[in-house]
């Protein structure tokens, strides 16, 4: 046995803000010479799709700051109070909020989800899709990027049992 540290992640969410933690942690862990497996289940499966269309969902998320990614600093620092009436009923509001957040990430020098996922794939992070939730949601292996393996709870647990870090995201 080598003394390589291992990290086992479960990615269960598909929103843009929840898409970041698994890919940030996985890519960084590999940079720290760790071995990583991510088990994608439920809405986390959407992060394996060839084109990621993760969005942010401001509705019912009172802790989410709504700031503008452009303009002078004083303007950017304003927190826009968005009433639930608007965030839940205005068509396209999620798209607007998503595009604003992506712009903010970019302007802050944060990598895109796709970029981080590519790094994970290139650096040998093992991606496992949950077969059961794939069946439930109607996904096939063809919907996903290359290199995804399929498995179930036992597949995750076998790796997690030997892992030094296990996180449910």
């Amino acid at each position, binding site marked *: 046995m080598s003394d390589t*540290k291992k990290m086992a992640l479960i990615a269960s969410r598909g929103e843009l803000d929840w898409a970041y933690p698994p890919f*940030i942690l996985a*890519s*960084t862990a*590999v*940079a*720290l*010479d*760790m071995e990583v497996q991510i088990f994608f289940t439920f809405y986390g499966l959407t992060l394996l799709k060839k084109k990621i269309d993760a969005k942010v969902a401001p509705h019912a998320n009172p802790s989410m700051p709504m700031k503008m990614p452009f303009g002078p600093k004083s303007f950017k620092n304003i927190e826009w109070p968005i009433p639930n009436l608007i965030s839940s009923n205005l068509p396209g509001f999620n798209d607007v909020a998503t595009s604003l957040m992506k712009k903010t990430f970019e302007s*802050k*020098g*944060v*990598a895109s989800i796709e970029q*981080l996922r590519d*790094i994970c794939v290139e650096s040998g992070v093992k991606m496992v899709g949950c077969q059961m939730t794939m069946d439930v949601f109607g996904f096939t292996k063809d919907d996903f990027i290359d290199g995804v393996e399929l498995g179930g709870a036992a597949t995750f647990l076998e790796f997690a049992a030997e892992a030094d870090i296990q996180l449910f995201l």
Partner: protein
Amino acid sequence: MSEVQANMELDCRGLNCPLPILKTKKAIESLNSGDVLKMVATDPGSINDMNAWSKRTGNELLSSEQTGDEYVFFIRKK
């Protein structure tokens, strides 16, 4: 420490977590054992992150200095 001669320079200015670490890792891989990499970042988190990265990977962090808004690191590949 500014006397150390770097074999390669990596510009991570403007990049945020985890990109400076990921790019440092990639740059180090392209070097030979004993070579020195100079990395410049503007992410204040990079001080702790580079320490942690060096500790885990065994690549030696020769120095980390702040000059203005910039952080300069010299790393020797193990």
